[in-house]
């Protein structure tokens, strides 16, 4: 039985959707599909964007029509699955909670019917797998957010959120690697640079990493910031 549907996403991309939930099994399905398409080395595939439960395939419409590529992908999907294996890195991200939008932390606490201290305790308590990278260069989408902290996005996105903001949007939590508009509730700020435009490998985190947040003081925040926002991994 097929576990996915293919839909057009304009005339130069298509979307392969899996069961719409944040789930390690679905993540594995997305990864397998991504690898099958990558390994086929089809001329005319321009880029792939894997996400929690979907894979966006950007293609050259001079090479494929939507129907042609859809059929090709269905054939590829039938091929035997290959195991994917990658060892996870475990990374601690230091966070100064309550900055720079204390009202957001209060909102999340109120929405959950918890105290601010409990929200911080719960948020620092879990280990979060990096499910996908996207939205901004080096932005990790993390799974395993405690259900008590699930909070719908803001009604109107903010036009600017500073780099290092750690936030919650719906069932997701993550860190803004650079200043950007965004609709998430911001719990705190990390001094660690998740994205460095000058570097050979500008992106700190990779899909598959395991993240833990650690509550820090303003003093420790300044120390790490003055040390260049580096992290020893």
């Amino acid at each position: 039985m097929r576990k996915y549907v293919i839909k057009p996403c304009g005339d130069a991309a298509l979307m392969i959707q899996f069961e719409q939930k944040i789930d390690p099994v679905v993540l594995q399905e997305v990864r397998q599909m991504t690898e099958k398409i990558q390994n086929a080395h089809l001329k005319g595939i321009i880029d792939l964007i894997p996400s929690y439960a979907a894979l966006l395939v950007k293609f050259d419409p001079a090479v494929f029509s939507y129907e042609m590529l859809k059929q090709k992908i269905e054939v590829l999907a039938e091929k035997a699955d290959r195991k994917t294996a990658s060892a996870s890195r475990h990374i601690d991200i230091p966070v100064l909670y309550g900055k720079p939008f204390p009202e957001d932390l209060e909102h999340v606490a109120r929405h959950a019917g918890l105290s601010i201290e409990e929200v911080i305790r719960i948020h620092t308590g879990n280990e979060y797998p990096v499910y996908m990278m996207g939205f901004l260069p080096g932005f990790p989408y993390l799974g395993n957010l405690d259900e008590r902290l699930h909070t719908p996005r803001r009604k109107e996105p903010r036009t600017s959120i500073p780099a290092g903001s750690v936030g919650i949007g719906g069932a997701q939590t993550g860190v803004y690697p650079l200043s950007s508009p965004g609709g998430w509730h911001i719990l705190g700020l990390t001094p660690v640079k998740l994205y460095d435009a000058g570097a050979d490998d500008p992106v700190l985190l990779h899909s598959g990493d395991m993240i833990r947040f650690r509550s820090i003081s303003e003093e420790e925040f300044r120390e790490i910031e003055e040390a260049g926002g580096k992290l020893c991994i």
Partner: protein
Amino acid sequence: MYITVKQPGARTTIQDKGRYGHLGQGIPASGVMDPLAMRIANILVGNEEDHPVIECIGIGPVLEFSDAVYFAVCGGTFNVTLNNEPIRINTLYRSQAGDILKIGCSASYTSCVIAFAADFAEKPVYGSYATDLKSGIGPLGGRKLLINDRLELVNPRRNLANEEIRYFPPYAPKEETVKLRVIEGPNEEAFTEDGLQTFYRNVYTVSPRSDKMGLRMDGRKIETRTGNDILSAGIVTGAVQVTPKQPILMLKDHATTGGYPLIAVVIGADLSRVSQLKGNDKVRFFKVTPEAAYQARQEMDEYLEAKKKEFARTGLAAWFARNRGVKK
């Protein structure tokens, strides 16, 4: 040879069709707002269609040429002068040493490009000349052009055939309500039947609060079945995301992924029109099939291909082509 930036303009950058191969790390494609303008500018000066160009948004730059080179300015309605004499958009010109090219003003957010029959000495970054100002990726360290910058050009191409016929008609004037053809979005099921009808039967107005990431659309609220949160997934230029407040039409600086449902995606053949929209413009969305979109794109490709052949014609064929024109 080089080009000296006498005045940088509001947002003048080096661009190409966009940076691909890194979207999965969150590195955005960026690239030109108006892909058609890039293609015709490059065809006019005899380049590959996706050769890097200078893109101007809003207020254009003033540039000085150190030497002779073919160039063309293509895209939206800007007042363009060469040594203070007006020159035409979508037309081939050749500069002389010391010439001053001035790209004037346009309503905010509309764009034009300048193509040169030469290569930039700047190197591509992660495989592309696209500049993404927000993440600072691209030639010149990922920034826009600044006053007194000297852009070095190498390998200037000389002796283009049929100089005098190298032009394209200017874009048709904007309709009072701009019609945009779309394919249904991958999250159409997130909306009620009423919500979809609202979207397709009403006129939306481009909010002046729009930017190069997206055009915010003011108009009737679109009813959802399941709310406006979806699991974040990849998005493309031309996609229409629906936030609880309004639809947002994604432009070239959009992020690689988003968490609002996609109700529709503008077809490739209409993206040039999208790039010329500005605050308070009115738009209406019309649904077409993927086949119709493919057809529209092919027609555009064939038109450009025919022009390319016409420009490249030499000898007797060129003579006949020219004289056929004269007899009319």
